[in-house]
């Protein structure tokens, strides 16, 4: 124990200085350069418990420049693909603004092959750096919806709401929602109609409840803003939440007045599907396909594009690929391709370069059938995606 010398009560200034010196000399933990940041980076990647990985990642991110060399050393040793999302998302929410951290985020955000590029862009957006406006603008049309969101948020947080507002008409409802949240949180009420529309959603793609997830996000934002919940119960059906949504809408219309602009409507969907294919990619964007008993191929999360298949293409699609019974192929980090067929009761999920040959063949024949139907743009997209997922030949 350190014994503090007695200090005259009249000498508060001296006391303060002395105490500060003693604290600095005896109580302050090791200086930053002595912290074993490599160990924290390692822990952020390899600890068995998810929340302890997150705690270590937050510590690394909050340390700013001091820990960046350890992150770079890890990246050099294991490759950029080994960087876990928890580390990048910790940088995204940390407040550090030193050059070393910004350099790291810029490097990650500029690498189109980096899984967590959008999280790096989020980190840059949250730091509100005016010199990054050009970077955000150049990513507004990115194929990955998460990247478009962060590009829009970046501009939104810099006060450039005119370009951000354009994303309220994005083809992906998830982009429209997240950008609306940012606008509203930044005091621009023109995002409100999109949030009201999102509150009504309960639709799913296969079993991905994107509508419900979006409704929860919209609800949290609206509850904060309106300082009341109008009796809305997250996760409850559209019918049961009908009055609550009407309450929110009335409140929002009063607030917006004549500036109310109807949002992009999300089509309701009570179709019964026989199967679906989803390709989720942090790098290249998502693709969603479903088919119905009426031989219609429905494309997109909201199902806005519909293609009538001929008998042969439909029966080939609905029969699914010949599978070996194994349902998981490869280790999924972020990107994956999944399909499910109700008729056969089969499903499969594959990581990049791990899709079995018979499934690739099945999807290639679908692409060809679509090409015959004149949907060449879509055929090209599907074939490009297959390149990413097709298993490497031994």
């Amino acid at each position: 124990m350190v014994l503090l010398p007695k200090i005259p009560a009249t000498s508060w200034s001296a006391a303060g200085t002395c105490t500060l010196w003693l604290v600095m000399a005896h109580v302050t933990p090791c200086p930053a350069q002595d912290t074993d940041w490599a160990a924290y980076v390692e822990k952020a990647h390899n600890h068995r418990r998810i929340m302890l990985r997150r705690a270590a990642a937050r510590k690394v991110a909050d340390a700013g420049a001091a820990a960046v060399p350890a992150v770079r050393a890890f990246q050099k040793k294991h490759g950029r693909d080994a960087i876990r999302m928890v580390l990048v998302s910790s940088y995204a929410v940390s407040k550090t603004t030193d050059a070393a951290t910004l350099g790291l985020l810029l490097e990650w955000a500029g690498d189109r092959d980096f899984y967590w590029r959008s999280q790096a862009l989020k980190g840059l957006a949250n730091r509100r750096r005016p010199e990054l406006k050009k970077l955000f603008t150049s990513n507004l049309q990115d194929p990955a919806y998460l990247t478009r969101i962060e590009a829009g948020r970046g501009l939104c947080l810099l006060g450039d709401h005119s370009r951000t507002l354009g994303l309220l008409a994005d083809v992906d409802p998830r982009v429209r929602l997240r950008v609306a949240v940012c606008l509203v949180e930044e005091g621009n009420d023109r995002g409100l109609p999109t949030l009201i529309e999102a509150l009504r959603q309960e639709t799913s793609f296969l079993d991905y409840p994107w509508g419900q997830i979006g409704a929860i996000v919209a609800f949290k934002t609206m509850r904060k803003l309106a300082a009341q919940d109008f009796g809305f119960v997250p996760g409850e059906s559209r019918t049961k939440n009908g009055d609550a949504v009407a309450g929110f809408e009335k409140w929002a219309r009063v607030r917006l007045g004549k500036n109310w602009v109807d949002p992009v409507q999300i089509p309701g969907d009570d179709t019964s599907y026989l199967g679906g294919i989803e390709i989720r990619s942090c790098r290249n964007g998502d693709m969603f396909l479903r088919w119905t008993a009426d031989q219609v191929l429905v494309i997109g999360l909201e199902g806005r594009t519909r293609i009538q298949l001929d008998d042969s293409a439909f029966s080939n699609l609905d029969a699914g690929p010949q599978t070996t019974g194994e349902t998981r192929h490869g280790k999924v980090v972020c990107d994956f391709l999944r399909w499910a067929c109700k008729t056969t009761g089969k499903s499969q999920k594959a990581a990049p370069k791990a899709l079995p040959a018979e499934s690739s063949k099945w999807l290639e024949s679908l692409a060809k059938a679509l090409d015959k139907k004149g949907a060449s743009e879509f055929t090209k997209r599907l074939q490009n995606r297959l390149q990413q997922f097709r298993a490497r030949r031994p």
Partner: protein
Amino acid sequence: MKTAVLTALAFVLLPSQPTRCGDPEEVTFGILAGFDYEEGMELPADVSGYNGKQVSVSGFMATEDGSEGDVEYFIIINDACGCEGTPKMNEMVFCVMPSGETTRLKDGRVMVTGKFHVSEEKEEGVVVSLYGLEVDSVK
């Protein structure tokens, strides 16, 4: 790993009632994740009310450490794609299989039934789980 989860759950379980009692109530991520969680906060009554009850939770199976195949413990999340960031504390349910039993990780949405626990469990001073579930069945 399993030891850690079981130890954490054991503290919660000691004073608890027998596990199986009546039909399970369905609890949704709308309720579980419908608020902004902060460590030490008073949880909404509609969440804490599920503590100790027999419930069913629907979601996607994953593991904390990325392991695959037969597992003794797993987490349930609301979206199979973790692209938007690590799930928040109240967006995960930590599930433990009955002693000596394993289950295979399934693709697609599953319904997990069992006894639900709401409690901040800490390791190394960090909250590592909020929702726990002693699994009776995975369908």
